[in-house]
């Protein structure tokens, strides 16, 4: 089912990415490819640097070294005008939604349309309400302020905002965390639909294996600053990689040691 064939155009190509915060090494020579129209899911323990990876690609964090190419164009160290142009290809759902709390919900969703594409406010509101409906929210919710929403509702609004401009590349940072199982599945379907209908390339982060199996063409596991395994989602149960096995079955025993002891 993966559209990826050898030699297909790479939408995102990351080589040797390093990022540290002070003495703490988070990404340590990470390589990752995402083909055009492909949906890649990155899995990995909490605090392994999955969100940092997305922020490096978006240029919100500056990598210490390494190369990130979007459509073959190097984006590390890009000037502000070129960066603006590249960013227009992206939509991003932040882990904590990061809604603008000074704006009503609908304006959050319409933000990229109004500010980025200069769309008329009335038209943008119509689109925003459609997108809200796509994530299971009514037009009335559009008039609320983000502070009046529950955590799961905020996540869905963040999702609606990420897809509102129909971007070429969409990043989802834990799209189903904090949602009930049914809404989680609605969101999974929505992500699949984005890939199929918009032809978007997506890079998602999740801890939810059911979600990963549903939305991923390919799964990549991040551990210790590197991608230690990547392969088609169908192979995930027979990866032969102890780390992946431990992670997908959620076992406390295995090669990955959680630092829970005080010693």
């Amino acid at each position, binding site marked *: 089912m993966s559209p990826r064939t050898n030699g297909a155009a790479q939408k995102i190509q990351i080589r040797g990415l390093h990022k540290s915060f002070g003495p703490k090494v988070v990404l340590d020579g990470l390589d990752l490819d995402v083909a055009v129209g492909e949906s890649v899911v990155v899995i990995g323990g909490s605090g392994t640097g999955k969100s940092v990876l997305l922020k490096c690609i978006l240029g*919100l964090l500056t990598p210490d070294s390494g190369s990130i190419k979007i459509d073959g164009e190097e984006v590390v160290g890009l000037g502000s005008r070129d960066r603006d142009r590249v960013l227009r290809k992206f939509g991003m759902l932040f882990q904590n939604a990061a809604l603008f709390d000074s704006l009503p919900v609908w304006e959050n969703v319409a933000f990229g349309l109004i500010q980025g594409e200069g769309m008329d406010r009335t038209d943008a509101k119509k689109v925003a309400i459609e997108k809200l409906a796509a994530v299971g929210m009514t037009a009335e919710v559009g008039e609320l302020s983000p502070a009046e929403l529950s955590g799961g509702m905020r996540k869905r609004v963040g999702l609606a905002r990420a897809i509102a401009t129909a971007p070429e590349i969409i990043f989802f940072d834990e799209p189903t965390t904090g949602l009930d199982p049914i809404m989680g599945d609605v969101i999974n379907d929505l992500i699949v639909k984005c890939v199929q209908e918009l032809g978007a390339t997506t890079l998602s982060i999740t801890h939810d294996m059911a979600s990963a199996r549903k939305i991923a063409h390919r799964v990549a596991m991040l551990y210790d600053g590197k991608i230690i395994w990547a392969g088609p989602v169908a192979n995930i149960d027979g990866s032969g990689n102890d780390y992946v096995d431990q992670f997908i079955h959620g076992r406390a025993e295995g090669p990955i040691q959680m630092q829970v002891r005080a010693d």
Partner: protein
Amino acid sequence: MPILQPIGRTFLIFLATAGRLSLFAANGLSHSVRPPIYMRLITRQMIDIGYYSLPVDGSTAIFTGMVLALQSYTGFARFAAESAIPNVVVVSITRELGPVLAGLMVAGRVGAAMAAEIGTMRVTEQIDALDTLATNPFKYLVAPRLIAGITTLPLLVFVADIIGVFGGYVVSIYKLGFNPSIYLKNTIDFVEVEDVASGLVKAAVFGFLITLMGCYHGYNSKGGAQGVGAATTNAVVSASILILCFNYFITEMFFAR
């Protein structure tokens, strides 16, 4: 020489901060003059800074004008120079007390709120989100505030000038027994364009400093609620000190010739 080390380090930190601040200011200003200009956001900031500061601004001004008349009276009576009160009131208010007190009050009110708002946006990743929506945070957050600060403070100070002079007038007429028309005539004859103009220039500079400090400290805040709290304090303290410092230099520029 271990005593020199901390001095040197402090000096280097000071230079680094001054450099970062200058870059921040230059970036903010350059976005203020390049399109697109967000009129909607500027208007909102102007209302926030100007309109909602009017009560604070007015009450500060009126009591200052009143106390100025009273103090001058008790002092000048010793030299039988009471007739100079209208002159003292109008010059002190327009040149110094109007802009400085309005500046300090607005720094406390607006600078703090700005740092808190932008700081919260920073720590909740809203600034990152702006960026990914292809909207430059300097253009969207910093520039409208700088423009609003620079243009609104002079208006506030002009209002403060009038209210302050009025405060002095009220006390002089009703408490000190001045003749109203002579008081007004003395005031108007004595005050010069340069007195008012220097005050308004100061106000514009103070407006810039207040909004710059609010934006800078908010933008660079980190570490959750505590970081935002620190940013708020720093914004108010640094703006207040800068206001007093720049006040001296602008005064020197205008009057020390």
